[in-house]
């Protein structure tokens, strides 16, 4: 149980980072990567199975959001400003 849980969390962590790398907007990309790293580090010590499940569910929801927003940003390319 513990081993499979650990593998599941790591898989999720990698998937989140991989998806965030695809953000075309600089601010969003750097924020997402930083926030994901900090959140996983912050919750590293969590032992309670129920709490882990809540966090895993939250991460899954966020992964879906990141995925949709990455696609959205690719559809609408930002216009470069003329300086």
């Amino acid at each position: 149980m513990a081993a499979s849980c650990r593998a599941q969390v790591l898989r999720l962590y990698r998937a989140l980072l991989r998806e965030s790398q695809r953000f075309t907007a600089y601010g969003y990309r750097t924020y997402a990567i930083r926030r994901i790293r900090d959140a996983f580090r912050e919750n590293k010590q969590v032992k309670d199975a129920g709490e882990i499940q809540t966090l895993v569910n939250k991460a899954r929801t966020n992964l879906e959001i990141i995925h949709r927003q990455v696609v959205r940003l690719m559809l609408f390319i930002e216009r470069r400003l003329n300086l």
Partner: protein
Amino acid sequence: MLLLLLRRGAALRGGRGPGGLSPPARLLSAAQRPGPGPGEKGTGEDSTLRPLYMDVQATTSLDPRVLDSMLPYLIHYYGNPHSRTHAYGWESESAVERARQQVASLIGADPREIIFTSGATESNNLAIKGVARFYKSRKKHVITTQTEHKCVLDSCRYLEAEGFRITYLPVKRNGLIDLKELEDAIQPDTSLVSVMTVNNEIGVKQPISDIGQLCSTRKVFFHTDAAQAVGKIPMDVNALKIDLMSISGHKIYGPKGVGAIYVRRRPRVRLEPLQSGGGQERGMRSGTVPTPLVVGLGTACEVAQQEMEYDYKRISLLADRLVTKIMTEIPDVVMNGDPEHHYPGCINLSFAYVEGESLLMALKDVALSSGSACTSASLEPSYVLRAIGTDEDLAHSSIRFGIGRFTTEEEVDYTVHKCIQHVKRLRAMSPLWEMVQDGIDLKSIKWTQH
């Protein structure tokens, strides 16, 4: 106007050298750019880039989580939240009520005390004109401060024309009001005190808790414009004894065109609505509630509540980095506003002997402002800086740096680097700076007019 913009664009473009690529700006371009976007002409190999964004007091970018929650209501669920006869209406209504709950939860209020508006400007107008007019038969006096946002000051001017008396409290040199002065200003027929929580130009935090306490003992309603504070610092309407509070969507990574006002129910605050119509929002704000925008505001509040501590820590760190680097590298830089009672994400610096506008022009690859966006078109020095007693020349040389959720270390470092470089360059050209270096006191000079 369009012509002017085009011409300005052309002039600016001409001024940019080929070596204008800069480290963080290059980071911006590092993202994949598959081709020109919709509605955009392909410009071919164009090396021009967007400037870095350091003006989060003017507005913030939409958080991806916020847009994600809004999109379904812009695509599928388009029902009118006030339609009671079909499912389209019900689903929109339940989304609006969920958002009301999210906003209320962020400020410790009851959802029934939240009224959705078009933004903090409307909320401020509604609070000031609404309360003053409702109680006008018995109370004809309103108190505010000199450093409030334009929409508060202008609403008060309007009330003056209607026969109300307004006290514009001065602020101390640090930007904070004197509680004793406020206490003395309260009269038997004072209906409302309006003091903003965090100032949009200099970032000072007023002693809201003390003001709330004072107003509640003196039985005067207390309104605070918390557009720059909500979601960034903890705000609890009951702990702070706030009766009315203005909230803005686009200052907290939410959409533009939506805001909210908190109106206390117990003891009840009554106000005269500004708009007549269908009686939505308990009759206080008629007009169909814009479901997608309100859903966005709700998510922005929820995200802000979750991320407040994390954001605050990070923004403080970045702000400290910016201020320390600039202050150690260049002399004669003044930080406007109290350094203690201060929101770290809003830094207002005056670079003595440098004209603020020329520095802004030189820093054209960083989006900055010398003050509020509303007055950024005028070259007049900011009235907020004048109110805190800043000298005319220092008020002309101020720049506001805004740090937000999406600001990076690289962006701060680049801004600092460019800022130092240009301040030094502009000072080297300045005869005033030369005179100061020669030990001449500029104040002693009698400038003659020819």
